[in-house]
């Protein structure tokens, strides 16, 4: 392969000696030990896969729901784009909506990519550029996404750096397309959304690969450790360090320091959001406190003696919040300095003294080697005094304060979930705290109710007080991130997945912006795990899935296997672990169908889209990162369902079942154009309720390539779930019957009647593809 590359290291140990400030420019990289032929699109530019994108986008219509009808991105505006008006630059409302979607995906990708870049540069500095990248035992095809997209197989840290160079270039292109007077077509904006989503998958894969390889994480381990999780699991007899965000490096310096000094009996570390997963992947003694939404409630509880933030999804007023409970804050990322004074170059003793004495509220320390010592020493020093303090008001105090409620409803109007906050406050006036406790159960912890309250009530804190026992009862065991799926696991399940006998792979990923609490994620996962679907989890969704106990007091991770197999529930890890899910689908194509991956994106995406019954669910999707993660799955042809708040992404990708042309594919064996059932019917879909999400999930795993037996199994579940949640037999089953063998035997009479009513005709089971070049003989 020929690609230009640039590599930089502050310090590099080589066979020729140690170099400082080393910069290398390479004109050509040749991986001459890899005999897999290069596919047609290594390191694709934004338009190289445009034809594939347009195939998807002609089947799945972007459906826009504008958040506002104006554009205010340049000084021509604001421009009114309502009706058929155009802005001063010429853009219309559809183009503008697509542009906003691209902006969101760019932002999301940039967060993962900058995270990956920091990790790679840091780890090269720590371990050297020639450090091996290892995903784990049983994995020949490591980094499948990178192979597929770039045509490279990253084997050393320096390879990872080269791949990130490619990603950074692509992001610059797709970001620039959102500038005034660049792209004008909604269709091409959307194509670039898919492109940047794909680039995002690569950057996340690199981020997780390098940290797995160097930081002692579980390596594709189905038996990754069970770790303690929940607010009630934190041991307040010890000093507590709370870490928040996504980047393991500063948090790892803390656990390393504690281990080195053998002071684990005096201090413990808990994480929130993805840092929680990655810190427990490195050190299973650390704890997963909760998802992103738990930040305020935990900080305000005062349990954390020091708060260490890294990057992404951090409460941006963390310094103010921590100050209220006299907990110093250490910011560690140049992306989220939080207004704190720079102390990286100061002696540790001096930083500790300033933080302990309260001279400063916090410090920005980007020298990660210092973070561990500073955070630990400060936590130990402030803990005795802090444990005597009370930070929440008592119920009596709340009752008294609540008497002055103005009954203005502003708290309800500010609540994203329309919770009856005001009614709960009025009940608290009378000493009844149960309604406040109920609000807590559905609260996403945004505290917008407080910002809106004219009395400045700390309403979120009041909810936490009302639910104190629930917080104490948050004691769960969750399985930390295992990393990739082994090739050997894929070998065992590839055939039953492609043929449909394992009815589907369902991934619960993403944020915690839930409409009615995190229990929904568990319930959805359990509904399908018990039906022998494979359930994969990551990020905050993986935490929420584990925060429900069964009648035996066990979490879903305790009672179900962590193997990639029917009925398994496996946590791959943090946000940047999501490409292991995409990677599993990609590896099915490589292992089961012997397809080449190298620079061969469209063929593999076509394979996955037509054959692998995978569905992503991000029930609490909130961020731009969630948008870019979803975009990466869309380009692979994998449908994604989000919760009702996901409608605020303001664009869905929806199929129309009756549009026959959209569901016509080539039979790769004959070249015939053949009508298939609408599967998967949609590519991006916001569900209003759990019931709707379950029905849609069961439907979206249907694929044109299902065998008769597989189709019959999938339809049985679809019908059963439809009847359970909607109360009637679905009226579109006949569309999915190709021949008698597709009919679930126990439902034959009903289905035959439906087929007759709709004048059903038998169809062949084909070898489906959207790509003419995949027809045997090349389609000429």
């Amino acid at each position, binding site marked *: 392969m020929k690609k230009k590359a640039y590599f930089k290291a502050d310090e590099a140990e080589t066979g020729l000696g140690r170099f400082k400030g080393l910069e290398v420019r390479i004109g050509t990289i040749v991986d001459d030990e890899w005999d897999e032929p290069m596919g047609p699109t290594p390191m694709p530019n934004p338009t190289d896969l445009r034809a594939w994108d347009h195939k998807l986008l002609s089947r799945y219509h972007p459906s826009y729901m504008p958040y506002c*009808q104006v554009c205010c991105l340049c000084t021509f505006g604001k421009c009114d784009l309502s009706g058929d008006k155009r802005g001063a630059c010429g853009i219309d409302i559809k183009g503008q909506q697509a542009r906003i979607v691209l902006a969101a995906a760019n932002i999301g990708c940039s967060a993962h990519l900058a995270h990956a870049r920091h990790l790679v540069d840091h780890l090269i500095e720590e371990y050297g550029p020639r450090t091996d990248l290892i995903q784990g035992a049983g994995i020949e095809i490591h980094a499948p996404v990178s192979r597929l997209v770039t045509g490279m197989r990253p084997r050393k840290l320096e390879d990872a750096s080269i791949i990130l160079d490619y990603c950074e270039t692509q992001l610059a292109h797709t970001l620039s397309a959102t500038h005034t007077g660049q792209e004008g077509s909604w269709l091409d904006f959307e194509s670039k959304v898919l492109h940047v989503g794909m680039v995002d998958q690569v950057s996340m894969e690199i981020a997780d690969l390098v940290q797995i390889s160097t930081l002692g994480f579980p390596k594709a381990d189905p038996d990754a450790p069970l770790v303690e999780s929940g607010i009630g699991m934190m041991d307040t007899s010890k000093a507590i360090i709370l870490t928040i965000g996504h980047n393991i490096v500063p948090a790892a310096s803390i656990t390393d320091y504690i281990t080195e000094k053998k002071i684990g009996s005096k201090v413990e570390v808990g994480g929130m959001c993805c840092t929680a997963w990655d810190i427990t992947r490195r050190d299973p003694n650390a704890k997963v406190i909760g998802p992103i939404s738990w930040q305020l409630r935990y900080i305000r509880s005062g349990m954390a003696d020091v708060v260490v933030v890294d990057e992404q999804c951090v409460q941006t007023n963390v310094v103010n919040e921590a100050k209220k409970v006299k907990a110093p804050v250490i910011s560690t990322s140049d992306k989220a300095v939080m207004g704190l004074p720079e102390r990286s170059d100061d002696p540790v003793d001096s930083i500790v003294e300033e933080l302990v004495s309260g001279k400063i509220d916090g410090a920005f320390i980007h020298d990660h080697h210092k973070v561990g010592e500073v955070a630990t020493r400060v936590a130990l020093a402030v803990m005795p005094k802090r444990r005597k303090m009370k930070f929440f008001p008592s119920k009596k105090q709340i009752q008294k304060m609540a008497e002055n409620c103005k009954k203005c409803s502003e708290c309800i*109007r500010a609540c994203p979930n*329309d919770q009856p906050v005001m009614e709960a406050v009025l009940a608290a006036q009378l000493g009844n705290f149960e309604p406040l406790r109920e609000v807590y159960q559905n609260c996403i912890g945004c505290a917008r109710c407080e910002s809106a309250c004219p009395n400045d009530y700390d309403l979120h804190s009041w909810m936490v007080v009302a639910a104190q026992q629930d917080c104490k009862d948050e004691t769960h065991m969750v399985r930390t991130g295992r990393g990739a799926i082994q090739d050997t696991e894929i070998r065992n399940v590839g055939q039953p997945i492609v043929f449909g006998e394992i009815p589907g792979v369902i991934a619960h990923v993403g944020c915690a912006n839930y409409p009615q609490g995190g229990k929904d994620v568990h319930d959805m996962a359990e509904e399908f795990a018990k039906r022998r679907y494979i359930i994969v989890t990551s990020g905050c969704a993986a935490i929420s899935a584990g925060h429900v106990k069964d009648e035996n007091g066990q979490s879903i991770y305790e009672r179900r296997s962590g193997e990639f197999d029917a009925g398994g529930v496996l946590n791959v890890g943090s946000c940047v672990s999501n490409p292991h899910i995409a990677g599993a689908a990609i590896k099915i194509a490589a292992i089961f169908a012997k397809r080449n991956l190298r620079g061969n994106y469209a063929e593999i995406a076509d394979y996955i889209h037509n054959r692998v019954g995978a569905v992503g669910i991000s029930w609490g999707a909130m961020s731009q990162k969630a948008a870019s993660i979803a975009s990466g799955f869309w380009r692979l042809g994998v449908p994604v369902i989000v919760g009702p708040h996901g409608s*605020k992404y303001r664009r869905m990708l929806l199929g129309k079942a009756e549009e026959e042309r959209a569901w016509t594919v080539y039979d790769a064996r004959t070249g015939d154009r053949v009508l298939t059932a609408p599967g998967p019917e949609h590519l991006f879909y*916001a569900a209003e309720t759990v019931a709707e999400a379950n029905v849609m999930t069961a439907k979206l795993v249907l694929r044109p390539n299902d065998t008769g037996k597989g189709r019959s199994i999938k339809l049985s579940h679809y019908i059963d779930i439809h009847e359970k*949640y909607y*109360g009637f037999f679905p009226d579109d089953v006949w569309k999915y019957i190709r021949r008698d063998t597709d009919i679930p035997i126990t439902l034959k009479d009903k289905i035959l009647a439906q087929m007759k009513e709709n004048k059903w005709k038998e169809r062949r089971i084909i070898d489906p593809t959207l790509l003419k070049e995949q027809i045997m003989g090349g389609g000429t």
Partner: protein
Amino acid sequence: MVMRPVPWQTGEICGPDSAKSLTKPEVLKRDLSKAKKPLLIVGSEAVTEKHGTGDMIDYAIALSNAMKMPVIATGGAIKAFLEKDFENARSMGAMELALRLQDPDWVGPSGTGPYDMVIIYGLPYYMQWTLLSSVMNFGTHLTAIALGRHYQPHAKWSFPNMKEKQYHAVLDEILKLVGGGK
């Protein structure tokens, strides 16, 4: 209670156009009389929202019967209609509807369209907001009436965050206006 035609969720402000305030049923008279093919959209929250001695599903059934108007239930609300033996309801996702309503030739799941009016309530506030944004911007052949209690700026007509008691009284008056509620 704000009782003003401003978005119920304070951040959900919209663009240059916004709904007219529906404070008395008479203001709907002209649009309702002009409508030849109205469609009633009822979301999942209607199942648990009380109205009189029944719930908002009962209200939907009464309104549908009075106006001979088909119902599309979203988010699984169909189950409640079926439990009440109501046969003129079909099930669709709110987001599927948001796409389909952009098409002036769409005949609906029961083939009774194309529609010229949508009456809607019972979806989560923000989801109804986004669905109606789709209608306002791309389904301009439709007259949209939001019958939820809270102001939906993207409709043509919407209640202005009305007090509960008053709201349910106006709902009953609307039902009478179209010949129902007897």
